[in-house]
């Protein structure tokens, strides 16, 4: 029920947007977000953008994960 997927904002018209889910374009309401911008990734749930997906935080998580593997003594 809480399934939500990352989608990219392609265009904005008032409180509505066209967003791309891996190439498929759907309508989404932006009324739960402050100052959304074209090109940002958002989390899409039942026709609403719930939150931005942070590119910085995503990169940081990936860096941490890779660092974990690199430091593993079994792999040295």
């Amino acid at each position, binding site marked *: *029920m*809480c*399934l*939500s*997927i*990352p989608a*990219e904002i392609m265009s904005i018209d008032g409180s509505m947007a066209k967003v791309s*889910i*891996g190439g498929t374009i759907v309508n989404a*309401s932006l*009324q*739960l*977000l*402050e100052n959304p911008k074209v090109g940002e*990734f958002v*989390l899409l*749930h*039942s*026709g*609403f953008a*719930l*939150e*931005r*997906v*942070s590119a910085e*935080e*995503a990169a*940081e*998580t*990936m860096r*941490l*994960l*890779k660092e*974990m*593997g690199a430091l*593993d*003594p*079994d*792999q040295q």
Partner: protein
Amino acid sequence: MKYIDEYRDKSLVLDLVRKIKSISKKEIALMEVCGGHTMSIHKFGIPSLLPSNIRLVSGPGCPVCVSSKKFIDQAIIYAKMNDVIITTFGDLIRVPGSSSSLEKEKASGADIRIVYSPLMAIEIAKQNPDKKIIFLGIGFETTSPTSAAAIANAYRDKVNNFFLFSSHKIMPPAMAALIDEGVLINGYICPGHVSTITGSGIYEPIAKQFNLGCVISGFEPTDILQTIYMLVKQYELGEAKVEIQYTRVVKPEGNIIAQKLLKEVFTLREDWWRGLGIIPNSGMMIAEKYKLHDAEFMIPVDVPEPEEPKGCICGEILKGLKNPKECKLFGTACTPSDPIGACMVSSEGACQAFYKYNRAR
């Protein structure tokens, strides 16, 4: 797909499993309280990767599973009214009520329409001014803001034939009730998308009062394994903190706009949860100002108390006390194509996830 594929990387998964094995000494049971996590955990075979001292149990995180059959029975009574159009997410269409389902009623001619957003229900209301359009609102804090936005929009635009029938619930009271009942777990895998709205603060009382680690998790394999690593680490060190693994989406303060909207449109009431019974302040009803859009208030009907199906142990499964394989009906009398209990009905129920992904294991 961006923000999905990279979190399914096999070598990262194996690294994480190795790290978990290297720090995990004690027996530990972790509960996920989101149906999305239940699905991911079984779909990606996470339990098979973990050492035997780490046990994952499913909790009351599937809205269809914890909701009363009475909700479906009442929706069916509405569906039979000539001037009503029912709008609903696809999840509810096959859920059996006491004597029928929305799918069967639709086949018999009732006007029941599947929508993927409550905003579509408002459009249907505008196109059918002589009908009452009832949207079936079910789900936790991820979904309730979208219902709240729909009500606020209908109120603003005076779409007076749009009604919400709310079965919306909030998560923390159920998480506390479980521990109060004596369910033994050592940490919570907290719901990522609920927390996107609420922020991480809602778990602080649970971490403090029950001395339980709470980590907010994403839904991909490396997300879930990193969360398990964080919970195991806390437990081994004797800590009980609230942490966010899913930082690319969840902020500590949550989505303030959505929180304000929830407060504006809903008030809390007691609600019934399968397995847990009545929990105070755990359900969401429509606030006084918006009663014009409340299906229960504007279109009151009498609904008989439903009976729970005999032999079904869904209630105990939702509390993590039993697993689906311990049910006599599982996989024989009760299957996804012919379900008896709520945990098999829903695509994110523990029984259906077990049936789909674990039978061969």
